[in-house]
């Protein structure tokens, strides 16, 4: 159907995606043992939903999901970090347009490219946007925010590289058609 602007499916993907984001952020963060460093499963999820539904959904799920979760959990939010999450969703979503998970395809080469893109996205989000935002909006000292940004970049890149790749691969696997299977 010809539609102006956002398709209905995208609207729903944003809504449901943001709801899943909130639940995952609340219940599935795993402490690593290093203070203030958690394994956040929301980022691999964000990567998945962005690859399936594209950059606009990726951006919006990141933005709305992060902001809603902050407000519902902490009563406030840090807009610079919300924006950074959204940009990460946007970048991965842009690359996702070149993938075809819906038809069960996720080759080794695509896996490597996906990870290069997500690492670049993480660098841009946590090492550029979030710290710059913190300095501009909240006037915090530069070395503090850049260190925070660096640790987020490393952590989230690793988490997406491992869990995100697993998630994408698993999703593609659910889309395999019967085709050549036979009983044995």
């Amino acid at each position, binding site marked *: *159907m010809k539609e102006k602007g956002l398709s209905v499916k995208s609207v729903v993907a944003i809504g449901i995606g943001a709801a899943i984001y909130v639940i995952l952020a609340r219940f599935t963060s795993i402490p690593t043992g290093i203070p203030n460093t958690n394994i956040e499963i929301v980022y691999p999820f964000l990567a998945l939903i962005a690859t399936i539904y594209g950059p606009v959904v990726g951006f919006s799920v990141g933005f709305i999901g992060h902001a809603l979760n902050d407000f519902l959990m902490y009563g406030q939010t840090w807009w610079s970090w919300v924006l950074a999450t959204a940009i990460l969703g946007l970048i991965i979503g842009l690359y996702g347009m070149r993938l075809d998970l819906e038809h069960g395809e996720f080759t080794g080469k695509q896996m490597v490219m996906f990870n290069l893109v997500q690492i670049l996205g993480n660098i841009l989000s946590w090492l550029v946007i979030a710290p710059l935002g913190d300095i501009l909006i909240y006037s915090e000292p530069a070395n503090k925010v850049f260190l925070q940004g660096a640790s987020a970049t490393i952590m989230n890149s690793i988490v997406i590289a491992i869990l995100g790749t697993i998630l994408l691969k*698993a999703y593609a*696997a*659910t*889309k*395999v*058609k*019967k085709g050549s*299977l036979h*009983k*044995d």
Partner: protein
Amino acid sequence: MEPIIQFKNFSFQYDSQAEPTLRNINFSINPGEKILLAGPSGSGKSTIGRCLNGLIPNVDHGDIQGACLVDGKDITETSLFDLSFTTSTILQDSDSQFIGMTVGEDIAFSLENDCQDREKMHKTVNKWANELELTALLKQTPQTLSGGQKQLVALAGVLVDESPILLFDEPLANLDPAAGYKTIELIDKIQKEVNATVIIIEHRIEEVLAKHVDRIILVNDGEIIADQEPNDLLHTDKLEKVGVRSPLYVKALEKAGINLLEVPDLTSVKELPKSSTIKEKLEIWKSKQTEPDELDHKKALLKLENVGHQYNKHQQNPLHGVNLTVNQGDFISIVGQNGAGKTTLCRTICGFISNEGKISLNNQNLADLSIKERAEHIGYVMQDPNQMISQKMIFDEVALGLRLRNVDEDTIKEKVYQTLKICGLYPFRNWPISALSFGQKKRVTIAAILALEPEIIILDEPTAGQDWKTYTEIMDFLRELNERGTTIMIVTHDMHLMLEYSKRSLAFAKGELIADTTPIDLLTDKNLVAKASLRRTSLYDLAVHYDLDNPNDFVKAYIDSEEQVVK
């Protein structure tokens, strides 16, 4: 009269499928008719529905041959938006159709999208809320409603459009028997009021026929098998041939050797002729049935004392004071209205939620065991297999529980193969789960629980929304497991399932266990039937209709005869 719906040599093939789903179908429906569109899963009946509301070809793409006209509009040239004023759809999954945050908002949803002004919108919403007795619920959220109430909201939400065609997609799938009957009554009443053309997609013929239907269109394998009045169709064997269940009372008449052609009207028990020959034949058949073997002395397995759980302080009618003993080898059905405490009981037994009382298994207090340890004795299978499956391959999914218990790989392989053989999944062991049908997926989730060799398996609505074939496949498999010695407890809304398969029923109402008896005694007790939101079976009505002495025995005789057929 010009038909409101016309299919002319119509074929449709989804882009994603190798075969056409609908093949050269022809039929028409006149304005004001009430049609039951029946057929097994995958027959194409839902695809026909998706043509009527324009999802085909606007959302589901594919190849169309021939023509489908809805209210004179060719569906290939009409937008979803235009067609939505003609066809109103009530979807099967009433929770997903509930989009608004509250009842009022959801009813108003399509009016909001039409950008109607607020005052007019409130007036329309109030009118329909009043009509469907939803006024008191307007500010409630979907989480606080029962399945039946959600469906009423869905209905109100499309009635505001006042479109000429109402399309119901499996309206009975998620309802308890009493709510299902109410729905059928309501559809009848609404149709008379608004003069709409009604199309009901269902495979549960008997329940739909509780109210008058003009025609049944029977679909199988993408083709129209029958398009005739219910009475004519019931006189043929077409229904059962394609895997759609004919009404129980009709089957009982057949079993008793009564020639259906001699019965003029088969559409309801009430319409059957009061003939003494039929009565006699039924009596003779009943007396010929032998009692099944007496049950062995049973050993107590699971003992519940004062079990209860309250989710939060505001919860009305929390589960409380449940006392009962489950015996080794029991096949138990747990029934009652939504929110009566059935699922809460199962979750308490499995240790998912806290318990006010005491539960012991073979005299061991379960409070001492963790969730994981309990699962080795009591397995729990969720309603939706997709919510249980976390692995890609069948073997890995079944092996998961054993692997997480650090069993060595050789033993795992042996046990998993053995389980897969029991479940009839062995030939598929190297398949990805995504390639399986719903029934097969369900088996995988049962196999995954079975691999831990629990003494008891609890299943939450294992057959909800499934057609007769899948239903029989799942239930026969469970019966087999039961005969191998596994104790089985099933939460269900399905009266047939309860009667045919379970030996004992627990009925719940408002958080209380109100009955612990045989399914037949439960279903023939008027008082309990009303309290637990159940429906009496038509077999009982049949027995009463012909003044058979002791109708309960007749029902029992029928159920026993069914069981012998299986064996």
